[in-house]
């Protein structure tokens, strides 16, 4: 569990982060979202003490981060950033092994871990182990950056706009990968982004920052349905709210008995996908399949009912 306790950062008399408190449960993704200058990156950097807090405290599983030397603390906390920051003079394997090496893991254990992570990120170890970062595509380099951050099985993974430099298609894939890997490993992640779409897609909890203050900290559905302030509503985008809400709900929740024409959707697709399919092909319902067999259909009426449920 990560506890941030009324943490404040003052730069030249101005409060970049103003008495922010929040708690992140182990095994969850918390996305900190805000505009540039909202203090979100400063907040993140205070957790691994790349910035020293002016006041307040951060506790990881009950231990204050102020009690250890900063560089020792950082070896327990994964850190992935925009533009990956891989060491250009080290191979992929050495980059991933950076923190385990600092922690003096035995060599064969490090080698095993590197291969395991490359596998996890769908990169053939034999093919990628010996490459240099300059020989990777943007998406591959970003995956290696995240693998490096996860290498020592840290208590917490901090990510600062990790997908900011990727093009939209690769970004969506990277987000799906992250979600999949996080569920598999049960990692605790805090991720900073300016993109509300990304926050809603990835976050178990979303924390919205505005002018140094935490204005709302809630589940994505709650943020969309009941934005706490005008600013949060703006970030969510009023026009897109129903669609964003639908994108959070899987088809399995509204599937009903019956048959429908046309191409089927998997049960873990979102209501937004189903709505889009209905509108595009002029259907009133789409068939739903799970593990290859039909389980029923999802109707436009049911989708509409869910979109209106918050009222």
């Amino acid at each position, binding site marked *: 569990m990560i506890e941030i306790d009324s943490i404040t950062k003052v730069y030249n008399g101005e409060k970049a982060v103003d008495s922010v408190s929040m708690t992140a449960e182990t095994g969850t993704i918390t996305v900190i979202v805000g505009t540039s200058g909202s203090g979100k990156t400063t907040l993140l950097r205070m957790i691994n003490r790349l910035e020293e807090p002016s006041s307040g405290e951060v506790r990881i599983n009950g231990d204050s981060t102020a009690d250890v030397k900063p*560089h020792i603390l950082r*070896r327990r906390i994964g850190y992935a950033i925009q533009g990956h920051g891989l*060491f*250009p*003079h080290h191979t992929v394997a050495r980059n991933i092994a950076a*923190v385990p090496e*600092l922690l003096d893991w035995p060599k064969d254990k490090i080698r095993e871990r590197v291969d395991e992570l490359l596998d996890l990120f769908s990169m053939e170890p034999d093919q990628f182990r010996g490459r*240099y970062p300059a020989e990777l595509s943007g998406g591959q380099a970003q995956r290696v950056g995240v693998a490096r*951050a996860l290498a020592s099985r840290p208590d917490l993974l901090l990510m600062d706009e990790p997908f900011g430099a990727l093009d939209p298609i690769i970004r969506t894939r990277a987000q799906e990968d992250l979600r999949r890997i996080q569920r598999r490993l049960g990692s605790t992640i805090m991720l900073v982004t300016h993109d509300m779409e990304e926050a809603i897609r990835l976050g178990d909890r979303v924390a919205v920052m505005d002018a140094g203050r935490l204005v709302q900290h809630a589940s994505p559905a709650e943020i969309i349905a009941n934005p706490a302030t005008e600013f949060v509503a703006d970030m969510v985008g009023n026009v897109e709210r129903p669609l964003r809400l639908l994108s959070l709900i899987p088809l399995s929740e509204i599937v009903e008995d019956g048959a429908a024409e046309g191409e089927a959707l998997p049960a873990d697709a979102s209501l937004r996908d189903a709505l889009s399919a209905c509108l595009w092909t002029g259907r009133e319902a789409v068939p739903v399949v799970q593990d290859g067999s039909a389980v029923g259909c999802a109707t436009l009426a049911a989708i509409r009912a869910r979109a209106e449920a918050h009222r």
Partner: protein
Amino acid sequence: MSVGRVLRPALIALLLALVLRPGWFEPVFAPLAPEGGPVIYERASLLSLSLSHLGLVAAASLVATIVAVGLAIFVTRPAGAAFRPLSRTIANIGQTFPPVAVLALAVPALGFGAGPTLVALFLYGLLPIFENALTGLSTLPPAVTEAARGIGLSRWQRLLRVELPLALPVTLTGIRLSVVIALGTATIGSTVAARTLGEVIIAGLLTNNTAYVLQGGLIVGLFAVLIYDGMVQIEQRLARRMGA
């Protein structure tokens, strides 16, 4: 590339022949020697002069590299940042002093021989290395230095594992310039009795023997060209690996 493949071994062979078998070139240099005078320099072995010349250059460059890189590291740390303008001024002054003047000033203090030459070469070599190391250390990719800090490298580890290796190609360029300047400058060390290939050139100038001048000049020139080329190769290999 293919030109280099032919030219490089040819130049190396020529240099080795000039140093080890100077007698072979008697017919070539004979027209340049004064009538009846000696054609090939025989007062000392060219091999020992070459080794002593290269030794002086290597020693001076090594010390200059250690001092210049050390200084560049110091002024790029937070504690030394205030000294950055001052250190650049000092390194620049080292460069503006004519080497001959340094020799003249150093002889009374250090006596004749290799000492004053080493001092002159050292002072002259500082600036290019310092400037390049400084550029290398202060233009590191920000994402990389941020990541190095973020994953928990200590200050020393960041310097040794990330900053210096990344600054290496640029620093090597500075060392290369400095070594090449030193190879040429070392010849005037012979005016204060340092054993260098300058001895051959100076003997030629004193006795109006163009054959000596050409012989000494050619050897120094070939050393400079080949060492320059070798270091360029190393830099390119390093840069290619880093994807530059």
